């Protein structure tokens, strides 16, 4: 697992209070991990803080799964 993936996984576990095993790449924040729309706003803010990036609203709306987040952050960090 990449550093980005590990860090994202850790943030998701902390913010949503879910079991680490459930945070698979294809897991959807809302459908699989019990997040609501406000939780996802907070998650994106946590990603921004952790990776020192800015995620515009239209991009944030497209981040629905753990893999989406990994892809977006990896792309930004390059």
């Amino acid at each position: 697992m990449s550093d980005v993936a590990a860090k994202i996984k850790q943030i998701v576990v902390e913010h949503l209070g879910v079991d680490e095993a459930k945070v698979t790449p294809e897991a959807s924040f809302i459908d699989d991990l019990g997040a609501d729309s406000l939780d996802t706003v907070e998650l994106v803010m946590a990603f921004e803080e952790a990776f020192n990036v800015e995620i515009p609203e239209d991009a944030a709306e497209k981040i629905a799964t753990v893999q989406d987040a990994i892809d977006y952050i990896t792309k930004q960090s390059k």
Partner: protein
Amino acid sequence: MRRVVVTGMGIACPLGVGVEHVWRRLINAESGISAITAFDAKDLSCQVAGQVPAGTRATGGLDVNEWVPVKDQKKMDRFIHLGLVAATEAVEDSGWTPETEDDRCATGVMIGSGIGGLETIFNASIQVHEGKAKRLSPFFIPSALGNLASGHVSIKYGFKGPNHSVVTACATGVHAIGDASRLIALGDADVMVAGGAEATVCALGIAGFCASRALSTGFNDRPQAASRPWDKNRDGFVMGEGAGCLVLEEYEHARKRGAKIYSEISGYGMSGDAYHITAPAEGHDGAFRSMKAAMRSGGYGPGDIQYVNAHGTSTPLGDDLELEAVERLFGDAAHGLAMSSTKSATGHLLGAAGAIEAIFSILAIRDSVAPPTLNLDEPSRQSVIDRVAKEAQQRRIRVALSNSFGFGGTNASVIFRAPG
């Protein structure tokens, strides 16, 4: 109107968590006041408060993790945590678990807060001031809103009836209980979880009430002596935090399901001072009319009431004016009346005060005991009314009245009577 009874109670206050634990400590004349530990208060003129002690439910202390899922805690100000603790105990105590949609829709919530999420607002303001407005939590507003204790309790239990809240400063708790009882009496609901929650022992809360010159400042070295209603050396109130909740229920509804009935709400009255934002009117006319209205609504005369749980906050002006109003209202029946201020042990819980004091009034009836007024060494005003100085008293109490008065000149009184 339909009859309304109390079938469940829950409390978190400076004397601890859990109705029986808190009541035992209150009757034992213990104090919940200490030096402020929630933040560094060294720059403030008041450095004492009543804080809910840490611990576990089993030992009568607070561990929020036992009551609120960790991931949800950050979405709520502390007043909501405390409201959930009190509401959970009350609901469990009542044994009311609505199984049908009709029953859920007939069960509502009315938990008020005098101020709401003050510390949350304080912290968010700092963030904005530091140029981090875009980093505000999406949960900031729903954490701070005063009606969100009601919201969270309804979500937790699926109570789909009236979802309401009250904001009347220090009269909030009594207004919530009284108004919720009216909703049941009028048929808008069969069951209501009602009470108040407050968590303002934070820098902004203490500093704010210091600025209004309302808090005790002369007892920072002796915190347990700071709240001293009616005593000649009193110098202001002591802030407390916590929550109290009652489960109110229509009488037949409670009887049919075989619920334990603590008490019946048999009177409720309100008034406005129309006088001053913080000072009580001359002769505490508003208090007098509020108590009178409660007695009228229950069909009581002065001789029918054996115990008054006073608003009695330990402020120089308010205590004796309330006493005077009670003397005037009760006339000859003031002889033999017991009136105490439990704020001497808990501090003043603002919007939660009326709710925890309702619980104390109900338990005073149940156990035939008047809880004490701590620190009443030498009253500033003599009275024929027994203010239960320093030690609890065994007394036959069938009917009890509880007062709460708030800034803005808002007054509320509620009367409880023995069941049956």
